[in-house]
């Protein structure tokens, strides 16, 4: 970690951290659901609406050209952020779910046939399960699931066991939202490519924790959401290799995605516009650009080493609570702590720690198969960001102890 990194200083960039909840200072530990927004992102969106509101790729007037230039600057920023080869490989979507659905509809419906096998893992978010199930029901493809072990991980060998000559697509989460596990996706991509199988990586929980180089990973598709990267909601990214995107038909029809339209025939626009029908979330994209600048200025080296130290601290602190069960204890983990209290259901715990001003997520985290694997209906989850501190974790521990007191004190 470089000396310039200071979580205390960073906290001042996030106005949401200064509010009180139920009379207590907010302790925000729900970053896997969404991250807070730094002032620079909020300012940038406001500035767009105040001074450069216009539609993009349309007018010849000053504002439209300015908005278009700012919008396209962000495409280049995202290219750089992911180290994609071309900015035309960056498509703006509504978010991760939208990006996955785009691939399921466009690639899946066109290139997958009855009997083709499709590999996902047991730890996928529902957004990387349901679109493929819908495709399965429509086309008759076969879904194969990489099982996870009791630490919440799987190995490259577990993947390899499912690989057959009939495997035609692989779609995997890089970092699990409910377990924190960092999966060995690079090796899996290499293996899949030996059989020319395209691989989609769900990076929703990745881009805020570790740097991503899509050329080095060599994934065919990579998807993420802006709002989990300290940017606005309603905007996301689909990266796709040019040769894949080129042969894929459009997902939606409308303005912007065409070159010419007559009632007889429509010619589709070039990449990336072929996949961006209608007016995009312009302010959202511009806000995402500011968020990327912000994260890059902090630097992933700082983010990773700081978050890992927080993860270790949090794991140790939670482990000291008698019989508290950590769900997700893989060797390679991002700063996500899922747990089950021996006496208190996750929802009761969520309500009681909220009373102390602490925001955690409770429930199945849109990963019901993971809950089933561990035999629990729900977990409590504290997911950390670089603005969290050891003190935040101390508050959480105190609140869990308090919840325990309430549960036992009132019952004698």
């Amino acid at each position: 970690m470089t000396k310039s990194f200071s979580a205390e200083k960073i906290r001042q960039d996030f106005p949401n951290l200064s509010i009180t909840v139920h009379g207590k200072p907010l302790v925000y530990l729900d970053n896997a659901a969404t991250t807070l927004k730094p002032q620079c992102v909020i300012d940038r969106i406001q500035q767009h609406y105040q001074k450069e509101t216009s539609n993009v790729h349309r007018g010849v007037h000053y504002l439209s050209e300015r908005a278009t230039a700012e919008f396209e600057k962000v495409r280049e920023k995202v290219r750089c952020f992911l180290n994609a080869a071309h900015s035309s490989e960056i498509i703006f979507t509504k978010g991760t779910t939208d990006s996955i659905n785009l691939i399921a509809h466009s690639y899946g419906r066109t290139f997958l046939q009855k009997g083709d096998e499709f590999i996902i893992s047991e730890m996928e978010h529902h957004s990387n399960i349901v679109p493929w199930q819908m495709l399965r029901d429509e086309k008759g493809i076969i879904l194969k699931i990489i099982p996870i072990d009791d630490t919440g991980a799987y190995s490259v060998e577990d993947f390899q066991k499912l690989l057959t000559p009939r495997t035609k697509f692989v779609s995997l989460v890089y970092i699990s939202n409910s377990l924190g596990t960092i999966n060995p996706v690079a090796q899996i991509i290499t293996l899949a490519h030996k059989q020319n199988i395209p691989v989609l990586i769900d990076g929703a929980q990745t881009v805020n924790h570790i740097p991503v180089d899509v050329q080095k990973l060599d994934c065919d598709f990579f998807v993420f959401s802006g709002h989990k990267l300290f940017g606005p909601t309603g905007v996301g990214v689909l990266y796709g290799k040019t040769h894949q995107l080129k042969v894929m038909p459009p997902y939606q029809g409308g303005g912007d995605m065409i070159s010419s339209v007559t009632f007889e025939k429509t010619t589709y626009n070039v990449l990336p516009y072929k996949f961006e029908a209608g007016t995009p979330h312009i302010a959202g994209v511009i806000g995402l650009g500011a968020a990327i600048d912000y994260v890059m200025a902090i630097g992933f080296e700082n983010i990773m080493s700081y978050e890992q130290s927080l993860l270790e601290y949090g794991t140790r602190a939670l482990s000291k609570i008698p019989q508290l069960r950590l769900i997700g204890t893989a060797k390679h983990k991002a700063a996500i702590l899922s747990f089950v209290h021996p006496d208190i259901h996750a929802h009761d715990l969520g309500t009681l720690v909220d009373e102390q001003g602490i925001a955690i997520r409770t429930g199945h985290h849109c990963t019901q198969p993971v809950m089933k694997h561990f035999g629990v209906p729900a977990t409590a989850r504290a997911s950390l960001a670089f603005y969290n501190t050891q003190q935040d974790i101390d508050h959480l521990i105190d609140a869990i102890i308090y919840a325990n007191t309430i549960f036992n004190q009132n019952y004698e």
Partner: protein
Amino acid sequence: MNDTNRAELYQQVILEHHHKPKNFGELKNVTHDAEGYNPLCGDHLHIYLHVNEQNIIDNISFKGDGCAISRASASMMTAAVKGKPIDEVQTLFEEFHQLILGHLKPDMTPNHLGKLAIFSGIWQYPSRAKCASLCWHTMKGALEKTPTVSTE
């Protein structure tokens, strides 16, 4: 119950029913039963009923996983409806429904809720109100012969 003290959700009566639920377990001889799900949290419970020829619920039980609120509510519901004719239970369902929406104030409106009035503050926590109402919707589903009920 007020906004600054959520611990009041977890009053002694609720915790007693949570720790030692009444009418817990599977009932063998049933005339009605149904399964209820809360997709928000993954909670589920099963309600078993025996309704006799006089249309009286002469036996009822429940089984399942859930938070303290859902478990206590199911326990208290079974205790409240056992021995009651179905039309009275229907009235109780309506009153409980109005209670958790915050529309019925038990100290201001005449009602039959009795101990169930303990849930009078839960309308302030919409996500938790579903925990309290799951058992009631499931029971209603059982009586109407709807085998699966969801709070969504």
